[in-house]
């Protein structure tokens, strides 16, 4: 009764699209600091850094959701865990990223592994709910960490250092650090998606029975994918903590997970660079609308509904349609 997005056909055309658009996106992102220098630099840099940080998390979510069919409503938990790794270590005076980064990745990967064992046994909406449940658990645990701010959160006094050098202190340097990480994550997922592992992973979404019949242990493949996504989520959290110099349980709320889902849908599910576009579109629209009126959510809510109803395949799908119509005209 339900058509999955794969069946709608839009995915097929987009996943074949390589080069072109993604390269343009990264080029534009690289140019932002130069353009920002003409205006309120710190603000613009901060804004686009946030865009990239969420794009990293969105890429991970697009991988398991768009390609793997695993709709996780608890993805923000991984981001939060990565962020808290930075915060908690920082509270004890440990700021070197050679320590905090591996800890962030390992902690979120571990959480993904343990919760994945339970979640991946369930299907469709049950999967959505159980990931939500684990997300909420992480949220409440973080809120109970009284020595680390509890519900109020924790200020991070120093961005991550490398061998004692505060290399991330400068906003521009930090921007490029995040940009390179985003690029690396994008290339990583691109490679994974087209690898043998990736093909099994994608096949498991479309027809798990067939994959089992072919001899693949679907559960283990999905778990590996889930752990990778979790670790990348933790990486995003590491960046977020450094970007805002603050960490709080709010980073793990279910509303945040919902926002990540909106981002990947907005850009175009199952396209990878769609996740980046979606993150940018969501945050920039939020910023722009918020500047216009205090009641901006009155516009934003229906906008989301309209996008779902009429812009299938998100912004990339829209662009495709427009291009198609133009080429015919």
């Amino acid at each position, binding site marked *: 009764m339900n058509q999955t997005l794969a069946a709608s056909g839009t995915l097929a055309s987009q996943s074949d699209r390589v080069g072109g658009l993604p390269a343009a996106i990264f080029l534009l992102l690289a140019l932002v600091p130069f353009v920002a220098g003409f205006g309120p630099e710190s603000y613009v840099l901060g804004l686009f850094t946030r865009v990239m940080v969420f794009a990293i998390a969105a890429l991970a979510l697009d991988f398991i959701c768009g390609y793997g069919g695993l709709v996780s409503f608890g993805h923000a938990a991984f981001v939060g865990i990565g962020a808290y790794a930075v915060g908690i270590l920082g509270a004890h005076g440990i700021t070197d990223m050679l320590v905090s980064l591996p800890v962030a990745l390992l902690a979120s990967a571990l959480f993904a592994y343990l919760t994945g064992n339970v979640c991946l046994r369930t299907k469709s909406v049950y999967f959505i709910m159980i990931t939500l449940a684990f997300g909420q658990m992480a949220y409440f645990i973080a809120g109970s960490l009284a020595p680390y701010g509890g*519900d109020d959160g924790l200020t991070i006094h120093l961005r991550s250092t490398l061998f004692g050098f505060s290399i991330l202190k400068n906003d521009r340097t930090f921007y490029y650090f995040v940009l390179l990480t985003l690029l690396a994550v994008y290339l990583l997922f691109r490679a994974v998606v087209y690898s043998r592992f990736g093909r099994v992973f994608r096949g498991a979404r479309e027809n798990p029975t067939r994959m089992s019949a072919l001899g693949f242990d679907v559960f283990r493949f999905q778990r590996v994918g889930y752990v990778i996504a979790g670790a990348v989520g933790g990486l995003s959290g590491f960046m977020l903590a450094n970007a805002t110099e603050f960490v709080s349980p709010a980073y793990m709320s279910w509303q945040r997970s919902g926002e990540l889902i909106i981002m990947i849908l907005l850009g175009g599910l199952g396209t990878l660079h769609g996740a980046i576009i979606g993150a940018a579109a969501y945050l920039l629209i939020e910023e722009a609308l918020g500047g216009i009126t205090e009641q901006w959510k009155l516009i934003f809510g229906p906008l989301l509904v309209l996008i779902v109803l009429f812009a299938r395949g998100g912004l990339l799908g829209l662009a495709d349609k427009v291009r198609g119509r133009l080429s015919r005209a």
Partner: protein
Amino acid sequence: MYKKLALVGAMIGLSATAAGAQEKLKVGLIATLSGPPAVLGQQLRNGFQLAVKNLGGKLGGRDVEVVVEDDELKPDVAVNKAKALVDRSKVDFVVGPIFSNMLIAIMKPVTDAGVILISPNAGTSNFAGKECNPNFFVTSYQNDQNHEVMGKYAQDAGMKKVFLMAPNYQAGKDAIAGFKRYFKGEIADEVFVPLGQLDYSAELTKIAAASPDAIFVFLPGGMGVNFVKQFRQAGLADKVKFLSAFTVDESTLPAQKEAAVGFFGGANWAPNLDNPQNKKFVADYEKEYNAVPATYAFQAYDAALLIDGALKLTKGNTSDKEALRAALMKANFTSLRGPFKFNTNHYPIQDFYQVKVAQRADGKFETQIDKKVFAGYSDPYAKDCPMK
């Protein structure tokens, strides 16, 4: 792709036009304007804007532009908006926030940029003590103080057994700690509820079982509205005295109505505080906004007066930060609450009262001053502050 370019272009254009208006003084307001606690942020904004209006749209003789940002009670949004105020709008002052956790989030981005942050509500203990900041000023109180008022009141009134309840976050913990600093009797129980909890059937049962002389609660916003109603419905109001801070105030009384009449609170002000500037303020506020002002409004009003008074001393100059800070320290204004002075940690030294909820002749509800509990009272953390 094109969308991003366009937006970046628009932002640059906006900031360019902003750069042209250099002579105007810019003040950024940051408060929670969405979700259930929005009414508090609205009071803050209204109070500040009323002051600006009464001063003819000028502070310290300079035309003022007020930029309002909503922190949505989300810490990273607050950080983002604070940076927007400081970098994009290039404000000279940031006034806000309401909530303590928002304050912790925005302290660094605002003060690191050299901008003065004035809090008309949140006054956490860390910034009063060890982490005090020369660019940070408070026109409200230190969070513990209103609770200490109730603790002292309970102690002086000879209460033997008190039941304590507050939300499970830093301000809640400060509340309980503040109460216990002065109340030396028996604590029946200390309950921390999740922030935002609305149904108190479980806690009310505990209170009834404990049979205390009084309860002391700190339950802001919707939490207080619900608790007061349910407390009254459970029939406990006649048996147990109701002591509180920030639980029955003008922001919640319109919803609590008769249920809260006779309940006590601890505060540094009440609408019926008898001095001419306050009487005018209350009348103006009610006329303009058709609501009784609460502490959030009057403290924001005072923040505007503080800026005005300081700028009068520096002759409108905001670029000499040392001189500006010194001028602010002088508290060169007549506060709505009467006597007002800054302590070395930039928190106020003021009087505190025990207030009682009553219904006015015109049907509206407000808190009224019953008894002065502390005079010229400074917070206990000032001694830990390295600023002298």
